[in-house]
């Protein structure tokens, strides 16, 4: 299958780039994983295997790190990822209503991906932009002072 071959090639390339950039050292494992995660969107088994091989570590040691950190994912994510700040400052200024609005609009819960693979909804810890809460990030775009009513319009920007 042509498509699968190209994905496998992309993963391989991302791993190679990360290794070239940071060097195949134990203490560079997190930067390497972060790089591949950013390139591919998540960390496929193939990537973990190749990294483990390069660092001469058991795959389990690489997986244990990959699954520990909130910004690394070992499962595929949607085309767009919403990272919703679930921290207290956003919570006390109406964050809950906003997350409910997002869940209703996308018909998924936190941690899930829509069946069409368009959206993944994640709850993350403090984004440090508490002065403009409730806040969330769509891919790399930051939205602050969000009200439940604004949610559909924001999501619409990313469709199509």
């Amino acid at each position, binding site marked *: 299958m042509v498509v699968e071959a190209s994905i496998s090639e992309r993963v391989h390339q991302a791993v190679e780039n990360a290794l070239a950039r940071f060097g195949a050292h*134990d*203490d*560079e494992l997190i930067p390497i994983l972060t790089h591949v995660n950013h390139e591919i969107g998540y960390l496929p088994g193939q990537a973990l295997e190749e990294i483990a091989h390069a660092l001469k570590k058991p795959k389990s040691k690489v997986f244990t790190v990959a699954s520990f950190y909130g910004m690394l994912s070992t499962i595929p994510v949607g085309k767009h990822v919403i990272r919703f700040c*679930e921290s207290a400052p956003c919570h006390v200024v109406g964050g809950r209503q906003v997350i409910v609005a997002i869940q209703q609009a996308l018909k998924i819960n936190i941690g899930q991906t829509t069946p069409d693979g368009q959206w993944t909804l994640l709850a993350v810890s403090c*984004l440090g932009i*508490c002065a403009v809460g409730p806040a969330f990030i769509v891919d790399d775009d930051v939205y602050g002072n969000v009200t439940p009513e604004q949610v559909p319009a924001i999501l619409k920007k990313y469709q199509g």
Partner: protein
Amino acid sequence: MKYFRSHILVCKDPDCIHKGAHEVMDALQDELVAEGLINEIQVLETSRIGNCWNGPEMMVYPEGIHYTNLTVDDIPYLVEEHFLKGRIATRFVEPEKSVKDEELGAPKSKEIRVVLRNCGKIDPENIEDYIAEDGYAALGKALTEMSPTQVIETVLASGLRGRGGAGFPAARKWSFVAAKQGSDKFLICNADEGDPGAFMNRRVLESDPHAVLEGMIIAAYAAGIKQGYIYCRAEYPIAVKTLNIAINQARAMGLLGKDILGSGFDFDLEVRMGAGAFVCGEETALMASIEGKRGEPRPRPPFPADSGLWGKPSNVNNVETYANVPQIILKGADWYASMGNEKSKGTKTFAIAGDVNNTGLIEVPFGISLREIVFDVCGGIKDGKQFKAIQTGGPMGGCLPASQLDLPMDYESMTAAGSMMGSGGLIVMDEDTCMVDIARFFMEFTQDESCGKCTPCRVGTRRILEILNRICEGKGRHGDIETLELLCKEIKSTSLCGLGQGAPTPVESTLKHFREEYEAHIFQKKCPAKVCKSLISYEIQPDICTGCTVCSRNCPVEAINGERRQAHKIDPDVCVRCGICMQVCNFNAIIVN
């Protein structure tokens, strides 16, 4: 060198960027070109001028005028008024915020800015701006006029305590590492500012990175360390970028690297980025993460000074701690110790969130009362509502009620009151906040962020959360409060690291100060603040309802029925208590029971 008659500093803080700072800056450039002023007036980026609640904003020097709430459309008018006609465009200046240059150091009456002194005043990406503000003068003084021991003695005498939360005397840690033989020692800056609502360190890193670098170099000199790391959380990409620029500039000027300022002292620095794990703010977990492992804490002792990064003696301090150091060296220990109270010296930055009029960042001397912070510095509670509680110390801190408002803000007083100083996040809550819900919320956080290594934290926080969930759902039982108290005690005394030891504090403090709310939930099945969904119901008052149908059209679950121009009714069995009907009703006909 090119001279400009005016400099415009546009705030490029993330808060302002999302409100359109990029667009405003572009419009400004275009307008200055169009008016032929571009060779007279320089536009620069800076970070954080005010508190960014009314961005995009900018500072104009030499006048020191602070313009706020700017839009792209305002720029032509602003340029014409200020730069062509030489008049202040007063409509963008809020009277109390139109601070002059010399007053920028202390914009609010009770604020003293030491750590934040340069924020919004200098270009963080230009080392010369920092040097012009006496930057690296302290490093020069330390390296040429002082011995490492003298540096340690000066900082000890200043009373500087660790700003990460624990409050351990900073220079004492340095002296432990200084006493170790061998050259394999590490200096670490903990920039993993994960406490929800606390973003003081982010502002310092983004707006005055050299202050942190200079503090680190001085500390490394004092402790005899050659290699340093700044561990910054991945949620702060701008801080990482700014730091890397600053490090490169410092290196190019010979302020980092070999033979710093010709003194023979070598020190270099590297930024390490986290990957989203709250527990990595704990120093042993942080070091594990730098080593490329799971960020799990380990028991102390051995403390980092004995066995830290890669098993070598290491010194870990927080961003704010390091940022204080150059000022102490430059102005002397006595000057620093003159601020604050008996046991807590100097100033502390706080990030205020929640239901106060002015949220954002402040820097105040230790010993100021909570009341002064809430009502004087932050302008009191929003919408004229009543103060209910202030949460200090982050998710491991406690909620203090109105009766504790006169407490002085210092390490010992906060601990004695059943909360803690923490790193500086403050959340103010008004009368509409349910304290049981808040306790549950913090428990959700710690439960989620528990790394899972030790049982009391992993299992204990889950048990507490289950009970709190039950109480909020109206299924609380007799004995729940007692079980919570027992769990809190045990988790506190048996957990491995600060996360577990602090996790029960929000529950303990709310049980102590707001016990009646727990009792109302459990025994009367009522949520006094009308927050817990299972314990409230929405009702349309038929005599006020005009039958406009707005509520029924907006109800996501079709729980509202009624004919046009007739009073509507909510079906409590279908209603999911989202509150949308109440928000959209134009006649305030909907009430919560």
